[in-house]
């Protein structure tokens, strides 16, 4: 077991050997939106617009509460957005407005 003092210095993502719930193998199919997140990330990486260390820094900077609550690809899309904002590729105002447009569009389909 890793000592408590060492655990105190860990980031929230650094879970090797940390006691948590028991492991049980479960399978699940990726949802299409998750594959789309993956594809966009890969494309941005290929174009040199999103390095793996940037993505990880953003994911690891989520804070404990958000890191535990968000699913894997929720973490990714949030982190990807942070890096796109940092790089000035999209702005806060643009993304905020577009999210509302998408929300209205999707709601009107039901």
């Amino acid at each position: 077991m890793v000592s408590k003092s060492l655990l105190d210095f860990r980031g929230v993502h650094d879970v090797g050997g940390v006691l948590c719930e028991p492991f049980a193998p479960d399978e699940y199919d990726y949802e299409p939106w998750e594959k789309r997140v993956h594809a966009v990330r890969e494309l941005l990486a290929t174009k040199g617009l999103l390095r793996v260390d940037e993505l990880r820094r953003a994911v690891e900077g989520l804070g404990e509460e958000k890191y535990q609550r968000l699913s894997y690809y929720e973490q990714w899309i949030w982190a990807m957005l942070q890096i796109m904002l940092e790089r000035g590729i999209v702005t806060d105002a643009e993304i905020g407005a577009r999210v509302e447009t998408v929300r209205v569009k999707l709601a009107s389909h039901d």
Partner: protein
Amino acid sequence: MHDHTHPNQPDEEDGPFTEYRLLEVALRELLIEKDVITQAELHKTYRMMDDRGPHNGARMVAKAWSDPAYLDLMRRDATAAAKSIGLEPTWLNLIALENTDAVHNVVVCTLCSCYPWPLLGLPPDWYKSRAYRSDVVQNPRKVLAEFGTTLPETVEVRVHDSSADMRYLVVPKRPERTEGWSEEQLAELVTRDSMIGVVPALAKEDL
């Protein structure tokens, strides 16, 4: 079922629209509008993702079982071994881990989800779970037992922690009574989980 198509409508099998799902659509639309990425590039990437899967890793393992020169190359430079049969991972630092009667290897990424995905496809959900990442480094035999894998105490279990720069592919032991099999036949025995190291390769009887 809709009787007409909407380009930006997420697929019907997607779950409810969470804020993050909306964000995915919004960011993707903006990146395309700004010409940062194109729809054609995206579709090409989807196709590449579909082509990735355990069948790629299985080809390498089956060849390593069949061809001593290839096994030797895999031991020295697994990335070169992948490239030599036309597989994609040009960017991967790949290390092959051979299971033997004395040593059983199992792979994890304790920090996140690093995985040789060009060779195995996207990782299973459990591989990314906090429980697997935390537990397998501490109680590997207990975790292996959850997959139905029980190893004699005389077998050493080695757990390998992947990183962004270093990925692992387990070469499971070649199943018994498969002498004379072709590489194509052998590849049928090599499953995703056997290349992560949580189970052995399939037995002849399993096919």
